[in-house]
């Protein structure tokens, strides 16, 4: 098997003086470092993060809302001591908001200033002058590329932009460079880690998917959810955390409009701790269920299923 190191190859292409050292030694280290930053990963999450670093490829993270997709990028940034640059996507996001924009006002001022003090100035010199980096407003993507210190780039909710806008990202994702027609190509000065998140409200283009590693983050299993609760909610007892995790699992098995997310589970746990509960009785559950469920029909269904039937049996 050939042993071309993808990092080495990319570094050569970008013309970096030296190959930046890998951020993680092995998968165990990823898990450990993320844990220190209060993010409990699992095997899949950790392996993909590890591979993303090793292969120098972006990661596309998909899954239901509130399962820690954005938190993963933040935790990785903290774990490797990098600056997090975030691009929040929305419908109508365009080049000038995502990549770069020429600073028209400053360019105008420059031209006017040139006119007043001497007319001898050559137009081509002026043109060269106003299309210099001085007049460039960097937006998140260009900022991540041109940063010299280590960065983690988070492109959040990529599924919100139009299909055409996705194309803006392709050059960055595969080549780690940005082409600016008036200025030339800006190549990355380091190898940034890139995370893209998507709530899957639409199919992303093949071109984008092909350039990324794919990670599906679903709801955690009971054990992991319990551990997440314990690590994120101070002062909670293991027994209570376990019980919360089990209730949430039962809820997710019901056919609800919107299953409770991990972040809602955490809110619920915090509420129960504030109320000073050590275990969840039926009454508590019914009284606080609205923290987990946001639709009236879901609430009714859950109350009926979880509490009502039990009563009928007893």
């Amino acid at each position, binding site marked *: 098997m050939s042993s071309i190191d993808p990092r080495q190859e990319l570094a050569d292409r970008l013309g970096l003086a030296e190959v930046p050292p890998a951020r993680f030694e092995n998968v165990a280290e990823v898990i450990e470092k993320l844990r220190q930053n209060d993010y409990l990963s699992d095997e899949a999450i950790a392996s*993909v993060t590890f591979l993303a670093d090793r292969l120098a490829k972006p990661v596309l993270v998909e899954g239901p809302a509130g399962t820690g997709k954005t938190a993963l990028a933040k935790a990785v940034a903290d774990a490797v001591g990098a600056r997090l640059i975030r691009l929040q996507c929305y419908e109508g996001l365009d080049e000038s908001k995502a990549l770069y924009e020429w600073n028209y006002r400053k360019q105008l001022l420059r031209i006017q200033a040139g006119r007043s003090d001497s007319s001898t100035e050559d137009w081509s010199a002026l043109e060269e002058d106003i299309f210099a980096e001085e007049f460039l407003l960097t937006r998140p993507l260009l900022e991540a590329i041109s940063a010299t210190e280590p960065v983690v780039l988070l492109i959040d909710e990529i599924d919100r932009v139009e299909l055409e806008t996705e194309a803006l990202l392709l050059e960055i994702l595969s080549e780690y460079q940005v082409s600016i027609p008036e200025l030339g190509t800006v190549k990355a000065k380091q190898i940034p880690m890139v995370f893209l998140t998507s709530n899957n409200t639409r199919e992303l283009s*093949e071109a984008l998917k092909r350039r990324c590693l794919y990670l599906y983050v679903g709801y955690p299993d009971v054990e992991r959810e319990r551990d997440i609760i314990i690590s994120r909610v101070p002062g909670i007892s293991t027994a209570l955390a376990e019980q919360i995790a089990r209730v949430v699992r039962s809820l997710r098995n019901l*056919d609800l409009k919107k299953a409770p997310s991990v972040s809602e589970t955490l809110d619920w746990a915090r509420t129960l701790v504030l109320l000073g509960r050590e275990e969840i009785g039926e009454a508590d559950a019914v009284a606080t269920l609205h923290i987990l469920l946001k639709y009236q029909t879901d609430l009714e269904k859950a109350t009926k299923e979880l509490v009502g039937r039990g009563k009928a049996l007893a």
Partner: protein
Amino acid sequence: MRNLLGEFIVELRAAGLPVSMSEHVDAARALTAIDISDRDMVKACLAATLVKNGDHMPVFSTAFDVYFSNRHADASDLGEMDEESSNADETKGDDPNATGMRGSGRSRGMGGGGGSSMSAEELAEMLFKAMQSNDLNSMRSGAREAVDRYAGMEPGRPVGGTYYLYRTLRNLDLDTLMDRLIAAGTKADADGLEERLVKDEAKAKVEALKAAIEAEIRERLVDDRGAEALGKSVRKPLPEDIDVMHANRDEMAQLERALKPLSRKLATRLARRRRKRRRGPIDLRSTVRRSLSTGGVPIDLRFKPPHPAKPEIVVIADISGSVASFARFTLHMVHAISSQFSKVRSFVFVDGLDEVTHLFEESDDPAEAVARINSEADVIAFDGHSDYGRALLVFHEKYASTINKRTAVLILGDARNNYHQAHAEVLADLKFRARNVYWLNPEPTSYWNSGDSVIREYAPYCDKVVECRSLRQLEAFVGDLA
């Protein structure tokens, strides 16, 4: 390893996963970066590079289990895997129990349950203990034991694992096991909530056991028949390719799950396309505001958003036995994205016809609405065999006046008319009144016009007659419609 990866990708593509050349290269590269003796790691790595859609994960997982079965991964020298698959038995001796069992696995199937050291009770007890204490290892060995004992596997038989799985599960008596788990987990003073939690937990454990047994059976089949042959027989269609007419219960559930995000996706796509399609008149206020940043020169014109014309839809669905599941899905789908149409009216028929729009309006859970249609709609006039001609006549008589040039009429059915009169002239009149008439036929094109199918007579009066057997086809159609 490279060969194996290639074969694996061929299998994935055969199962319908779109794996591109560059993804293949990525996977090969990724494998060089990791420790390939770690099976979970290999799986995570291939999943990350080859599968780009969460819904495709189960299909990938099955294929992975077949091509990289546990036995093979035991041997850390993955490189020679291709040659040694037939004599895997000799490679490892560190687990005498497993090896012994494997050696005898071939002959045992014929001789019934002999040779096992445990009695049926002991096995049940062992599984119970393992599940109660969440001990994965002994659960797995229990599963192995159960397969030995009950599956009666015969080498060379070209069946998928389902038959063996069924035999094993029937003999294991999982219901009793679940009851025991529930009884053991329930405390004396438990309230309803706690009881429910215990029950769900037992259910999850039993599911895990089932999965373990299925995996075990699959592994043995791989040993017996090789990955390629087995890959073909356990291959499952992707959710969007499942044939709606012939789906089994599991597949139905899968379809329903797939439908929910699909209709949402479709709705966003349609809304977006409508907005993009035409630009409205220039928005002067916004343009002037915008021009300030360019010194008052209106470089960047702004437009008012367009007013999209939303079509009205009339759905007429055959819900007789032969096409019921299909009609269900289509009604589901159309109503799920009804926000994209200005008005949706639904009618169902067998040999009578009834309007069911109100059922969808009353409940916001489409599944419930469909259930109510089946019980409440008054669709049977005579013998309960579908009669398209009569249904069209009734529709025309009562509702023809509501059809206008903004309406698209959607007819769902196989046009199997039980040799009644077709009354195609009624459809001709509807076509004259409506903007479009579409016919969705859940039968494969090759069956059309055979036997009592009279789609030929209706086709001239439809703008389009399309075969619609899977979610993929349905999605494509609805996408074109709006």
